[in-house]
């Protein structure tokens, strides 16, 4: 930790202060594989930004990924640099302080999911978010199949994603059952 003044925590307007210094919370979603946490923390500390704590958010729904809250010192104008660096490394940042940046949505799809070019469907959704955890079930080649997927998306792109889903639904006669 940076200096040896008496530690002083303050909770003011949902912003944490440490030595009168702003603290920032980043909520990350990490892949559930060994070394993933270190991989996320290393670039932060390499930028000289202090990491105050790392909390596992176990109460949150995970579905194969590990949600973690990292509290760092205010990187000032370098916050964006930190965010960009992590996102370049495909690390998902769901929240910065209390502001939701990204959210997980779940979708179940009914229809001829594969025959209607599932690759194209995913590519089109990836323009707005990131499709992860795709799971297909095909009971019978002639019957409609179903699929489920999770999309990680910036909250302000949700409306656009909905419009794209409506378009795809019409073109490919797919039914999208959404969690929101």
């Amino acid at each position, binding site marked *: 930790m940076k200096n040896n003044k008496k530690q002083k925590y303050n909770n003011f307007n949902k912003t944490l202060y440490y030595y009168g210094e702003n603290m920032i919370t980043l909520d990350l979603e990490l892949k559930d594989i060994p070394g993933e946490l270190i991989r996320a923390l290393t670039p932060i500390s390499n930028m000289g930004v202090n990491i105050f704590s790392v909390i596992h958010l176990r109460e949150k729904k995970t*579905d194969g990924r590990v949600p973690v809250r990292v509290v760092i010192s205010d990187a000032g104008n370098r916050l964006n640099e930190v965010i960009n660096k992590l996102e370049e490394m495909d690390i998902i940042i769901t929240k910065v302080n209390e502001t939701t940046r990204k959210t997980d949505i*779940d979708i179940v799809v009914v229809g001829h999911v594969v025959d209607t070019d599932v690759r194209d469907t995913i590519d089109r959704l990836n323009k707005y978010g990131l499709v992860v955890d795709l*799971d297909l079930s095909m*009971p019978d080649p002639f019957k*409609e199949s179903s699929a489920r997927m*999770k999309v990680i998306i910036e909250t302000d792109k949700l409306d656009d994603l909905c419009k794209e889903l409506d378009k795809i639904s019409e073109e490919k006669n797919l*039914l999208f*059952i959404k969690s929101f």
Partner: protein
Amino acid sequence: MKVILVGFGVIGKGVVKVIDKKKNHLKSKYGLDLKIVAICDRSGAAIDENGLDLKTALKVKEETGKISNYPEKGKNMSIVDVIKTVDADAIVEATPTNIETGEPAKTHMIEAFKNGKHVITANKGPLALYFNELTSYAEKYNKIFRYEASVGGAMPIINLAKETLAGNEITEIKGILNGTTNYILTKMEKEKLDFDTVLKEAQELGIAETNPHQDISGLDTAAKIVILANSIMNKNVSIKDVKLEGITRITPEALTMANKSGYTIKLIGEVSENKLEVGPKLIPIDDPMNVKGSLNVAMLNTDLAKEVVVVGRGAGDIETSSAILSDIISVYLRTKNE
């Protein structure tokens, strides 16, 4: 208080049974001496300005199918003439719902207002199509218009939002407003059966109607969400404005997929600032909206109270009649000193 009952089917008979059962309770608790002065069905009417005998009315209908066979007091009079000429404080409208024209209920309601009678109804059709027109008639003739039973049967929602939650701004309403589709989806999920099989079984059990189109296409839910949007959120929308998708394409595999992600699938009606839709939605397994069987549920999102959730029975003669009775009592309480 004198009431004309228009429509003597499942709900009409339920209202009569409930009033008959609660007669003493109404008198001792509210000082309400409730008389049914006319009952109408397609055959005509039975009329007695001193109050019909309710057991006789039920017996005549049961045995002959026609209320006009009521001894001495049965007549072949049209419903509109009954509304115009029989002296009463209010009508209870319980004819079938028509979501294309709203008739004949719309005419019954307007005639009632014009002839100085309050209107209490369980009928969704006219409300979903002509809400503003009907409320302006009520205002013009200074009469009360209550329709709690039209959405969610016995589940309290309209009066809850307008009266109990008064002062809150309601920003979003969503819920399961159709018991038949909830029954079907619950059964498909539990027993891994396909839609057609479960629908057939529900029809045999009398849970789904012989013509289930309005339920499974989502139209019934659309009518209800429109009523909530207009009456609670002051919108000016109609069924045509609802983005609509039914449940006919839901498969057991889709339900299994949803379960694997921690969800179930429910037919949800939803209204908020820029949303008015009915369609199948993923609802988290542990969400309060995941109610089973033919139950209805609604969640109101409000500025002060935050989320409020109600669950109840969306259909059934006695259940739905309880909502009609509570509307009758509140009309009485509001007008008894006039």
